[in-house]
């Protein structure tokens, strides 16, 4: 089965590329990234700041199941409507270095669009660490779930 979301992480490179094709017109896809209310809905975060413009900034806040708050923020280096967003991303109060994100929005047809997200990390080790985060959490939360995911893949 063709996967809608793809992650490409080449060995030894300090970047990864996430691509996704959406069953949405380009304008709606782009709006999902710049409208604070919509961002809150799909990201499941509180949007404290979101200035979608050149030299703007953003700050989001999530609350985990234990009630702890986690904030992340960044600077929006560039924002071209229906085309691209270039921004940094940083998790506050963690040792993870800031990362650079290039988001490119493309029209495929009138009703479909594509997002390409290139994320550049400070080092190869930092990238691998970020990739492992959900993996490690998965193991901690439920080892069986990992087994299930693994067994589904062939």
């Amino acid at each position, binding site marked *: 089965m063709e*996967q*809608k*979301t*793809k*992650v490409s*992480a080449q060995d030894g490179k300090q970047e990864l590329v*996430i691509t*996704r094709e*959406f*069953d*949405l017109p380009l304008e*709606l*896809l782009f*709006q*999902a990234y710049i409208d604070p209310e*919509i961002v809150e*809905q*799909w*990201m*499941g975060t509180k949007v404290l700041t979101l200035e979608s413009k050149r030299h703007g900034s953003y700050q989001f806040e999530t609350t985990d199941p234990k009630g702890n708050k986690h904030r992340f923020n960044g600077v929006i280096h560039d924002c071209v409507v229906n085309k691209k967003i270039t921004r940094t991303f940083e998790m506050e109060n963690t040792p993870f270095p800031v990362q650079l994100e290039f988001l490119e929005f493309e029209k495929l047809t009138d009703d479909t669009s594509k*997002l390409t997200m290139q994320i550049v990390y400070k080092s190869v080790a930092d990238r*691998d660490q*970020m*990739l*492992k*985060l*959900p*993996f490690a*959490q*998965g193991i901690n939360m439920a080892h069986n779930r*990992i087994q299930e*995911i*693994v067994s589904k*893949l062939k």
Partner: protein
Amino acid sequence: MELRRDVFQAIADPTRRAIIALVAIQAMTPTAIAENFDSSRQTISKHIQILNECELLRQEQTGREIYYHLNPQKIKEIADFIEPFRKMWDDRFNKLESVMKKYKSKK
């Protein structure tokens, strides 16, 4: 303190990766594995022990000899460690899609 082995640390070492490659072809005794390396028998033994603790290798007793096999299930888990990361983004994007579809129909 409980010592917890990280599978990713285990495979970060070139000698241990070479051991995995050897055992992938056929089950081997520690002596047979060590013969492929210039390092001391003790050093190789230590590497095997780490791989065994991480469940990358499985021991099997055949007569007086211990043979090491590769544990394919564990190898697959490592190969697929990107999957949870992909799944996380996939879930997020699915949400985005459904939120925007509702938004569109409301307009």
